[in-house]
């Protein structure tokens, strides 16, 4: 399944890459990508693990960019 999030306040391109890499390493994620310009995060992964994936992703975003808000769209 595919989930899309807006990363509000994303201002650092290098952090965007780090966030993307971090989420890609989470268990159950098929692919994750952060588009710095549209400030969008798209996660594709297994349906049953999605709640855990999202929790993990939030943690990663918080650690890399504490001011960024991750909002599902």
């Amino acid at each position: 399944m595919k989930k899309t999030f807006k990363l509000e306040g994303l201002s650092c391109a290098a952090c965007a890459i780090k966030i993307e890499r971090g989420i890609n390493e989470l268990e159950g994620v098929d692919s994750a990508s952060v588009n710095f310009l549209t400030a969008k995060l798209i996660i594709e992964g297994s349906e049953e693990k999605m709640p855990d994936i999202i929790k993990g992703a939030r943690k990663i975003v918080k650690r890399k960019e504490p001011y960024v808000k991750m909002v599902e769209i």
Partner: protein
Amino acid sequence: MRNRIIRIIIGLLLFIAALLIDTDRQWIPMTIYLIAYITVGGDIVLSAASNIFRGQVFDENFLMAIASIGAFAIGEYAEGVAVMLFYQVGEHFQSYAVDKSRKSIAQLMDIRPDFANVREGENILLKDPGEVNIGDIILIKPGERIPLDAKVIEGTSTIDTSALTGESLPRVVEPGSEILSGCINQTGVILAAVTKMYEESTVSRILELVENAGNKKSKSEQFITKFARYYTPVVVIAALLLAFLPPLILPDQTFGNWIYRALSFLVVSCPCALVISVPLSFFGGIGGASRRGILIKGGNYLEALARAEIVAFDKTGTLTEGEFNLIEIHSREIDKEEFLSLAAHAESFSSHPVATSLLRAYGRPIDQTRISDIQEIPGKGVVATIDGRKVSVGNDKFMDEMEIHYDINKSCDSFESCDIEESNVSFVSGGTFVHLAVDGVYAGYMVIADRIKNDARQAILNLKASGVKKTAMLTGDIDPVGKDVAARLGIDEVHTQLLPQAKMERIEELMTGLSKGGRLVYAGDGINDAPVLARADVGIAMGGLGADAAIEAADVVIMTDEPSKIGEAILISRKTLKIARQNIIFAISVKILVLILSALNLTALWAAIFADVGVTVLAVLNALRTLGIHMTASIKKKKNNR
């Protein structure tokens, strides 16, 4: 933003004051520098500290904090303040440039409709397009954006499709016409019945496609990601070694001098210029192409397009219109209009493609009272009694059977040797002859054929001019027709009478002929040749406007049915790639230069940071040029057409 500018200005004034103060008491300028430092860079030091607690080292804040605190530690107060000052100025410009690019992109994507006027009973309600259902009746006023794909039920108007197709010529719509979301209604009020939910409507699909194009990364982007991963740690480690090794090993060296050099390493250790500008270049290229009616589904396809070496085409529907049309009437005695009228009436009950094309060419209502008896002979033709005369319309076999003598020159395989008016020749492909006899007397024949698209020849010429080595055509059509079309268009290689499986084999054969790094592009209609589209390095579907299957199957979708857009797509791709490469080379070489100069102690700290943020800003501005590529491409196209 404002806040930062004020802080930069105060910091700068204090900095200048400290520089100018002439006093023996050391602590006075030192205090001023410290106040200036806290004003300008306090927030950076704070977030660096809090990042360390979260386990984040090596981020920009941390590096800048270390560099500036290091400068203070070795007594270079002015440099310490300058680092923060220039860093903040650079950040300011950078965020301005990123902001500007985000806005340009938002503008590019500004085809999203905001509302729909939905008719409910007597009232017109303003609704969110996402809440409108299939079958709802929507009202679109002049100047409004069409919110959902729909079918016109009342009113006529012209619509501007340029946001989807890049086509500036408006399209006329009337009851029965399909209209696509994202286009702008221009002249009249229209009522239309919604045919697709918002998520399935053209505008949503295009936006999703372009936004998701970032997921399929090009080699350049992958390189940057990898580069960014190693660059910072490597530079930081190099800085550590540079700070401590030489003074320990070499005689007569002070730590202060080498630490100073190492600090310059830290300030250029962020790969920002690259990680922002390269993806931005690709995104801009893809966005710019979409405004020309060319949807590219990822940076990787853009890269492959730029390296196109062989371009293969399907024939029907790609290079030709894929529709039979009446091309010529060669009548004797009876005038052409009456001839066509007789043929159309005779064929009026048939569903054969020939009949359809005749009725379309006739274009007037059929007068049923003129027809009294119709008999269709499958595979041959039709006999009908019209105005009391027996009219026979059919192919050669039909004429032979009725022993009617026809005398066109049947030795000609193609039309070149036949007596077709010169003006039409270039548009004809694979014709069928249809004869007509009245009361057993031969009256003449018509030529019905698929037309070669107007821009097909130019499309092939453009490809050749852009350096594509070989063009090929793969068609299921019979040999003479295929060869004829290929010859007219100047296509190098042609394979005819191919079944879908055989098309696949031919594509694979062609691919073995590619040089290393060369790519094969295949353009088809996206409906019958999905496997071939998938097999080619880049599969291009033509005429994607409204055809969902094509949008799904291909890597690149050309919204209009013009094959000349393929050359344009290649041009845009090359330009985009060139800009991305410029940025990579520019940014990396400036960084390396600064690293070398700092290692040799030939540059000041503040100059290093100035170079670093300057590069980022310049690279972003350079990347923004990709957004405008479609304009230059269209200008070139116009010149070529002349």
